[in-house]
């Protein structure tokens, strides 16, 4: 049996770019440019929205929502019979959004804690998605494999049309953050104060979650369900180490996300058998590790060095 982790699309690149220089490749290879652009766009959107998720202690909500998108994809395909990325993304968005509401509802209405609600919603939605997918297999033009690559992510197969859809969802999300910057900031740091000022905190909170769902919908196609949580959490966690200001954190996270996106696309284009999603995630992990160790004031090495300095003061 041949292994097909996330499809065998990494083979896409091996014949075209054996030993070319990175930059030459970026500017000449159409496929690679599309992939790098897509990964960078995803990195920016998920980096920005991940900051709010991490600050609002919803780091794992993204993971649950990305798994929960599966039944939405299946239903969208079932209803329309199309594999158009926009249609499937809308399905994914609706399902992930429902899951988020359900998680919130369960924790509010019962004594079940958030972690249980997250894990259960994730697994149950995903299981239900599997049920729908297996039912779809009997559909005449099922192309179930196509849906599966959607599910496991396949950045290497991105085409211009996918990029357009990603931009169509991602750019308005970023604009929304820019317009409601003050509100989102206050909501993330002091929701009670925000409510006392008369801000519609419930609405804003749902809106922010919706934007996060959009970021996830964009990411599903590129990096897949499992790795999406890292796309949201890692840039934000890394950026947090370098600054105490939200604006700087968001900009840094977007930069980290975009940088890792491009780097991951390049690595997967030049190294054999490295698909884009895992490559991007490992780049992000490296950035996070460096940040945790080296960041001034907060980093582990920094604080170890400071402790040493403090000890060295003569008595």
């Amino acid at each position, binding site marked *: 049996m041949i292994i097909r982790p996330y499809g065998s699309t990494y083979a896409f690149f091996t014949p075209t770019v054996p030993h070319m220089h990175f930059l030459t490749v970026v500017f000449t290879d159409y496929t690679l440019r599309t992939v790098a652009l897509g990964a960078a766009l995803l990195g920016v959107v998920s980096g920005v929205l991940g900051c709010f998720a991490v600050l609002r202690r919803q780091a*794992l909500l993204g*993971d649950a929502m990305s798994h929960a998108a599966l039944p939405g994809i299946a239903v969208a395909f079932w209803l329309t019979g199309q594999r158009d990325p926009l249609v499937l993304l809308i399905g994914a968005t609706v399902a992930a959004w429902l899951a988020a509401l359900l998680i919130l509802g369960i924790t509010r209405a019962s004594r079940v804690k958030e*972690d249980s609600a997250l894990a259960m919603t994730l697994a149950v939605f*995903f*299981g239900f998605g599997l*049920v729908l997918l297996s039912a779809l297999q009997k559909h005449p033009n099922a192309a179930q494999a196509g849906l599966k690559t959607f599910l*496991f992510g396949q950045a290497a197969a991105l085409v211009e049309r996918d990029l357009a859809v990603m931009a169509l969802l991602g750019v308005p999300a970023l604009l929304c953050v820019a317009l409601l910057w003050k509100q989102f900031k206050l909501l993330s740091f002091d929701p009670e104060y925000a409510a006392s000022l008369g801000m519609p905190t419930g609405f804003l909170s749902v809106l922010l979650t919706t934007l996060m769902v959009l970021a996830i919908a964009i990411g599903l196609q590129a990096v897949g369900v499992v790795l999406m949580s890292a796309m949201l959490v890692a840039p934000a*966690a890394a950026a947090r180490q370098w600054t105490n200001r939200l604006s700087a954190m968001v900009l840094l996270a977007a930069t980290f996300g975009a940088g890792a996106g491009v780097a991951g696309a390049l690595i997967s284009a030049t190294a054999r058998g490295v*698909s884009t999603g895992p490559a991007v995630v490992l780049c992000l992990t490296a950035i996070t590790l460096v940040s945790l160790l080296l960041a001034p004031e907060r980093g582990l090495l920094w604080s170890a060095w400071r402790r040493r300095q403090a000890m060295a003061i003569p008595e």
Partner: protein
Amino acid sequence: MSPEIEVQLIAVIVAAACALPGVFLVLRRMAMLSDAISHTVLLGIVLAYFVSGALGSPLLFVGAVAMGVITVALIELVGGAGLVREDAAIGIVFPALFSIAVILISRYAGNVHLDVDSVLLGELIFAPFDRVTLAGLDVPRALLIGVSTLAINLALLGLFYKELKLTSFDPGLAAALGFTPTLVHYGLMTMVSVTAVGAFDAVGSILVIALMVGPPAAAYLLTDRLPVMLLLSVLIGAASAIAGYWVAYWLDVSVGGAMATMTGVAFGLALLFAPGRGLVAGAARRQRQRWEFAQQMLALHLLNHEGAAEANEECSLRHLSSDLRWRADFAQEVVRRAERDGLVRREGPVLTLTERGRQAAREASLR
């Protein structure tokens, strides 16, 4: 045994094996660790495969379990430094390990039966085809693994029940009494890893999460006692497994997916209908309290004006609407209920308190 019976037996045993450690994950608010562990065991399997060179090697099992525990340790290392919160640490660590596994497989394990899809999704329905002979008995391998996992979990639970209970509910007291919460924690994590590895072979890692968290979360709504919660979790898990099997059989869909869906249905039922704590019971209680409160208000109102000059005017049904700001039909219903409960009597248009109603009003005014 027919394959149908075998599949159901495997499903029930795996569900029971998952429910036992799941109870403690839910109680300790660590349910998302099951998500992390069930994904990263893939890396353990891959690494152990490189060391042993064979897919049938028991080293794969050991490697996978070890990687589950290492995952938890890494999460605590990243989270424990205080730079990121624990949930963010989970979100960083397990995708990284999973990515390494995916890359290793696609680069170095070229033609091996290590399919990421099948690890994530599993397919219970094929379990009866993979058979082993044990002491002259021809059984499915998944059944053997499931029974072993369940036996290990039961044994560990029996041995360390007291420790698990105390460290789950009162870690501070446990530490003060000389238990080591860290040791118990890692023991539990080993138990979760063993279970995840044993189960995901048959049912896939996502279903492992559903079986570990769903039934205990449902049981959590039904009882306050740990032994009852353990028992209920096992029963709910087994029932979801069988129901899932038959739903999948009738609709001809994925068995694992249907079982996961059924754990969700079971939780939904518990959420709605749990005695005392369910949404339906809550709504009924609020409704009852609403009428009780209205009757108390009525009794207090009548007691206030009893024997006064304006009593005849104040104590008419018509007057309640304006005085207590009740809608006419609501006032009528309150009076009807109060009459039924023997709190008031109707004398023409005038309402008077009975002795019991007077008693109720005095009690309400003292509260």
